[in-house]
């Protein structure tokens, strides 16, 4: 494989474009609304109308507005001579929603000037118009099952440039300058992490892609893997070159069978074309990627637990340091990054670090993909520049709560995050601002709650999750989560007193400071943040202390006034 081969594939792919491309979403969300049936019906309708030479029906990845699936978009070929890459602007053609197989012939009819009363989404709606796709640029455009489709969208160009024109140091500098921070939760600067792995001596190093997506209520990583798997492979290969690793692993959860199949296909195709394997682009660089399938344990998203799991062991974390960058998989220096982090790499190399660092806020660069779900009108995927106000995301793009409801809070960061109350909606979304509010950026799950949601119930829900998922290695987390869950249940059952609430707060503090890994350290967050903003919901559920007022050491009654401050 040399650069000419890439160009040839691109030209061939572009030349084979027919007049119309009908894009039909075949990512998991739409598949569960029978989009595969729709795609087949469309293919049949094209054949029946004798339009095979003019129309291509293409299965593509997520088109973002998942709640209205199956989505089908009609795209007419852009004849302008400058169009070297795939047409990818969202406003090119009508976007049909909730398409059924019965709609297929009417939809094909519109290509020949027929009219139809099919339901259409508005591509000018802020939900689409306010997005800035970098990670999702190919999502919903290219065919994830064909590497040629990715190559035609400038795919593997960055890998070529890196291997043929840049030194590993240049790549490290680019990533550092771009200001990219990890998208897996903590937001550690990616360039620094890569630099540490590169610096650590070792003959064998590894690159791991964390595709465990443990946050229940988040589906960005799955969409990226299902819609554009090659972008992750390319990012990993570039990382391998930069840090000096020749073997990569993708740890993907077993709950995502479609993503697993797409990744397997993608790896096979990349190997066939020599884009993975040995001597890539006729350089001395070798890189292979293997898949590791998770088996349903949230804690395996934590990096040290993940590595134990890759080694075929129980996924229990270990204390850090040593950090994976120094001693990771099989004791070798290991780079571990999130799916979205890797998907950002190729665009950064292609368009330059300056372009990337021009997007976002001072400390949080680039874009972030969020999975918008819960009590909100438009559920689906959005990618917005860092620093976008939360209000814009949930009210303008998301369309607010459905059926005229009022948004009460937005939950970010999953079980490690917190609830942001409605009156803080003007906060810009970046790592620091969210932390200040007592939540975290997390991996990108954003669950909207309306006034019917009871916050204590939410806190208990997350505590139950952490209790189930605690691996049991350290005591604060194993026993603490059980106790906190028990108290929360008692509060909900109106059996708890103020003392219980005090105990709960003490436990929060203890578990947070003494747990071994991030799971326990962040498990109290949902309780702490709901107590911070919705304390009255807790106090409303408390009952009188059956033992009478609390006595202090002198046998005197402690002042009961604290009750009113609750």
């Amino acid at each position, binding site marked *: 494989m040399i650069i000419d081969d890439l160009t040839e594939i691109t030209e061939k792919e572009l030349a084979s474009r027919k007049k119309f491309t009908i894009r039909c979403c075949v990512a998991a969300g739409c598949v569960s609304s029978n989009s595969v049936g729709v795609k087949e019906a469309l293919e049949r309708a094209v054949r029946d109308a004798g339009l095979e030479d003019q129309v291509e029906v293409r299965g593509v990845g997520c088109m973002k507005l998942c709640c209205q699936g199956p989505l089908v978009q009609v795209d007419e070929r852009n004849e302008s001579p400058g169009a070297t890459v795939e047409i990818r602007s969202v406003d090119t053609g009508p976007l049909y929603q909730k398409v059924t197989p019965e709609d297929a012939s009417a939809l094909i009819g519109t290509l020949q000037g027929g009219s139809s009363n099919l339901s259409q989404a508005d591509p000018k709606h802020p939900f689409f118009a306010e997005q800035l796709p970098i990670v999702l640029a190919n999502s919903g455009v290219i065919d994830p099952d064909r590497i040629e489709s990715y190559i035609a969208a400038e795919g593997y160009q960055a890998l070529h440039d890196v291997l043929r024109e840049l030194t590993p140091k240049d790549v490290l500098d680019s990533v550092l300058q771009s200001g990219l921070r990890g998208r897996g939760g903590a937001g550690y600067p990616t360039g620094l992490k890569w630099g540490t792995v590169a610096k650590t001596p070792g003959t064998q190093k590894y690159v791991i892609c964390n595709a465990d997506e443990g946050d*229940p*209520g988040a589906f960005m990583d799955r969409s990226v893997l299902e819609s554009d798997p090659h972008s992750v492979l390319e990012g990993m290969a570039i990382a391998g070159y930069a840090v000096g690793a020749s073997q990569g692993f993708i740890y993907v959860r077993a709950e995502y069978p479609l993503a697993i199949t797409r990744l397997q296909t993608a790896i096979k195709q990349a190997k066939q074309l020599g884009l993975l394997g040995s001597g890539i682009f006729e350089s001395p660089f070798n890189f292979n990627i293997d898949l590791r399938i998770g088996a349903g*344990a949230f804690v395996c998203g934590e990096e040290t637990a993940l590595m134990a799991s890759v080694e*075929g062991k129980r996924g229990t974390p270990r204390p850090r340091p040593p950090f994976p960058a120094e001693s990771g998989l099989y004791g070798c220096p290991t780079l571990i990054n999130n799916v979205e982090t890797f998907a950002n790499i190729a665009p950064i190399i292609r368009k330059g670090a300056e372009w990337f660092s021009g997007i976002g806020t001072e400390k949080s660069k680039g874009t972030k993909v969020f999975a918008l779900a819960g009590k909100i009108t438009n559920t689906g995927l959005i990618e917005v520049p860092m620093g976008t106000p939360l209000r814009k995301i949930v009210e303008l793009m998301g369309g607010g709560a459905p059926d005229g409801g009022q948004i009460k809070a937005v939950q970010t960061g999953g079980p490690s995050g917190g609830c942001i109350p409605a009156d803080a909606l003007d906060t810009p979304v970046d790592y620091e601002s969210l932390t200040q509010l007592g939540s975290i950026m997390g991996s990108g799950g954003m669950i909207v709650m309306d006034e019917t949601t009871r916050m204590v119930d939410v806190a208990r829900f997350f505590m139950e999750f952490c209790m189930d998922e605690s691996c049991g290695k350290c005591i604060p987390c194993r026993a603490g989560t059980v106790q906190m869950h028990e108290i929360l249940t008692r509060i909900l059952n109106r059996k708890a007193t103020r003392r219980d609430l005090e105990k709960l707060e003490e436990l929060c503090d203890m578990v947070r400071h003494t747990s071994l890994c991030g799971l326990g350290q962040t498990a109290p967050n949902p309780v702490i943040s709901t107590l911070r903003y919705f304390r009255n919901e807790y106090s409303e559920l408390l009952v009188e202390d059956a033992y009478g007022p609390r006595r202090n050491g002198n046998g005197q009654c402690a002042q009961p006034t604290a009750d009113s401050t609750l």
Partner: protein
Amino acid sequence: MIATLSSKKQNRLPRILEHASGDKRFKILEAHMKKHQYNQDALIEVLHKAQELFGFLEDDLLLFIACKLKLPASRVYGVATFYHFFTLKPKGQHTCVVCMGTACYVKGADRVLAALEEKTGIKAGETTADNQVSLLTARCIGACGIAPAVVYDGVVTPRQTAEKAVEQLKGWTGHDH
């Protein structure tokens, strides 16, 4: 204690291996292990395959894997019980997985689950006495955009309500299949 445990295993192994030689599924499983060069790191992959072939992980099966990968039985058992995905009990004819992830939860998955539990008379994680239906829960199946989601026999079904879910189960809990 240790002696009895190991001696029990000693007695069981020849029987398991003999049983395995007559079962095609064990051959497929062994071929899979061979593909991974009997690598001990591949334990989770092998367990996935075993569960795919047998439906659940029986003690004998775990011992078979331990023997072939030259791992202590405790290690295989430890890994199999650590991960939620592996089940050591047989599943019913049909499975019904209610997503209890955050997005589904705030949209009423708990009510769907409660209705199903009432209808089947079992709790989540159990199988009905007639072995027809297993009721399970999942932590987000990545279909949050269409919450609440329930997976009936592997088919993800969007926007479930208590009524819809109970309706779906009607065909299963009857006398026929």
